[in-house]
């Protein structure tokens, strides 16, 4: 009985009902079948309570900061800086795409923002340089998922909120996997470049040129350090850090790049508002879903299913990674975390896995899911930008996706990779 609501949820979603409504409708059927319709009275309160949370304000603020940075001409500066760094390598623009994604990741918390901001600049440039459009789209999609792994990260804010992990600790844990993904992608690109004889996009830049480009990108690149430093030193809560990021982005685009147009501000606010609204509503709906499923005893059922696989945490982690990868092929990362986090994490903690370690595994795995076919927001955006079908783009993605799979397993089995930085920074883990 405990799992019936899950079957309803999956059924509704398979039929095409948007996740947010399926998350409320499945529990409604559940309580109705169980003759517990009295619970319906409490649903609005649960939705309201799930959204009415101070830590969640970090979501609209981080999204708004990303919007402002992108409109403020900061993206272009990052791309130019990346070009002086790696443009002279074989496969130059593809490398630039990957490095820009790593740099942009520090400004924005969402992979989708990364895809559309960098894709709209770099995909046409790569095509002009002789890459196929399909390959350009594949590189953009695969490198975009670094966005929510390197802080700030909306997905991590959501995880931290639902599971009570430290946002600062999770942010700190994201740096190393993010860098590993970027470097791994560059290695694969280097091999492909040699094999397929990709062009270089720039002469080797002189130290002076690199310095100039770095100078113009330096202030924006400070953003993640301001955010993390503020949280770490106890000056900022994550929400305040996000607000500070908005203020910083505004200052940069008013005084440094001087490209902020007042007339575009309403548009930025609107886009940030709508994007936040969809995420927040899913959080409210997931609160109802989680509440009803826990009433029906689903968590203990799932927990016993998991421990029945094996009591060796390494084997269970392997299976969970496979499960999350498959889930990521179909689900968006946010809902997947909201539904599965409360079910999986407590069991893993009782098996001796550190909560922060499990958190980063889950966040990275489901973030990669944004780019895995057949369903994924990042793929979806890359496909609309290029007018190439998702399955076609996917054909060029496999070597890059393998990098992400390797990173997921490395951080799973070598906790030191992710845990050292939070420990050094004193997040008490």
């Amino acid at each position, binding site marked *: 009985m405990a799992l019936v609501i899950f079957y309803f949820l999956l059924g509704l979603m398979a039929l*095409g009902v948007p*996740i947010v409504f399926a998350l409320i409708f499945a529990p409604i059927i559940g309580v109705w079948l169980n003759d517990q319709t009295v619970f319906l009275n409490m649903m*609005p309160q649960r939705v309201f309570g799930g959204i009415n949370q101070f830590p969640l304000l970090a979501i609209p603020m981080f999204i708004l900061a990303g919007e402002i940075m992108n409109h403020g001409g900061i993206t272009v500066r990052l791309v130019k800086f990346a070009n002086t760094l790696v443009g002279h390598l074989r496969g130059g623009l593809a490398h630039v795409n990957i490095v820009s994604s790593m740099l942009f990741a520090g400004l924005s918390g969402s992979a989708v923002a990364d895809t559309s901001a960098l894709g709209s600049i770099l995909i046409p440039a790569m095509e002009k340089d002789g890459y196929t459009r399909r390959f350009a789209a594949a590189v953009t999609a695969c490198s975009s998922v670094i966005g929510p792994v390197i802080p700030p990260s909306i997905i991590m804010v959501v995880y931290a909120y639902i599971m009570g992990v430290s946002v600062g600790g999770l942010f700190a844990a994201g740096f190393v996997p993010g860098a590993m993904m970027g470097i791994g992608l560059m290695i694969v690109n280097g091999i492909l470049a040699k094999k397929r004889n990709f062009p270089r996009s720039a002469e080797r830049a002189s130290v002076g040129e690199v310095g100039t480009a770095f100078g113009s990108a330096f202030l924006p690149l400070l953003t993640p350090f301001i955010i993390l430093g503020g949280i770490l030193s106890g000056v900022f809560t994550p929400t305040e850090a996000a*607000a500070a990021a908005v203020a910083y982005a505004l200052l940069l685009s008013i005084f440094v790049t001087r490209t902020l147009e007042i007339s575009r501000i309403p548009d930025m606010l609107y886009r940030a*508002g*709508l994007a936040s609204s969809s995420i927040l*509503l899913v959080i409210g709906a997931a609160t109802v879903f989680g509440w009803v499923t826990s009433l029906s005893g689903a968590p203990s059922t799932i927990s016993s299913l998991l421990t029945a696989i094996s009591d060796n945490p390494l084997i269970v982690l392997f299976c969970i990674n496979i499960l999350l990868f498959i889930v990521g092929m179909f689900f968006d990362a946010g809902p997947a975390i909201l539904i599965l986090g409360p079910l999986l994490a407590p069991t893993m903690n009782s098996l001796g896995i550190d909560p922060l370690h499990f958190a980063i595994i889950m966040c990275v795995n489901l973030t990669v899911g944004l780019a895995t076919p057949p369903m994924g*927001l990042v793929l979806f955006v890359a496909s609309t930008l290029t007018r190439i079908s998702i399955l076609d783009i996917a054909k060029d993605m496999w070597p890059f996706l393998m990098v992400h799979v390797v990173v997921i397993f490395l951080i799973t089995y070598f906790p030191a990779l992710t845990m050292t930085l939070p420990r050094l920074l004193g997040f008490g883990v």
Partner: protein
Amino acid sequence: MPLATPLGFRGDRCTIKEKGEANHGALGKSMNSVGGLASLFERVNDRLLAVCKWAIIAIVGVLAVILIAAVFYRYALNNAIAWSEEGSKYLMVWLTFLGAPIALRHAAHINIDLLVKLFPPRGRQAFYLGINLVIIVTMGILLWKGWEFAQLGARQVASSFNFSMVWMYVAVPIGSALTCLVAIELSLKALMGIADPSQGIDEDITAVVDEVRE
């Protein structure tokens, strides 16, 4: 007989044709009234969602100002704004519920459309009708129960400023009602789409969306 047959045959064809025309006429007529209703809902929703849009712009702007000011007051002036935390949370709830109907109209709520895409246009419109009926039921219940919930707020006052909680709680039923209205509009369009897919829900709408969703 040889004469009668063609006559009779012609007669049969005539009646069939007439029947068909009559049927088509009735269907066409009912579709016309569905279409009229759909465009009525569309016009009403256009107005309502335009209000939501400007409310969202104002809310996000005010949120940014409040939160930045709160940081500034606390650290630079050493004087925290007492109501900033509670006030900004409530604004965020309103933001969420005012954005929901707009997201529905722009097909920006994430869904899995692999199965739907396997069907021909007419079948897809039937799917959309079913999906929107589910949304109407879901949001209808949230509207009904949310209205009762909002009335509870009449007896509560927000703790950091003197404001009845009705004004916060009522975001739930209002957002649900607006989402219902959009879902009704979309259902009517899907109904027309089952008769004639070119009249139904525009499937290219998602192209507009990722610009918004980003």
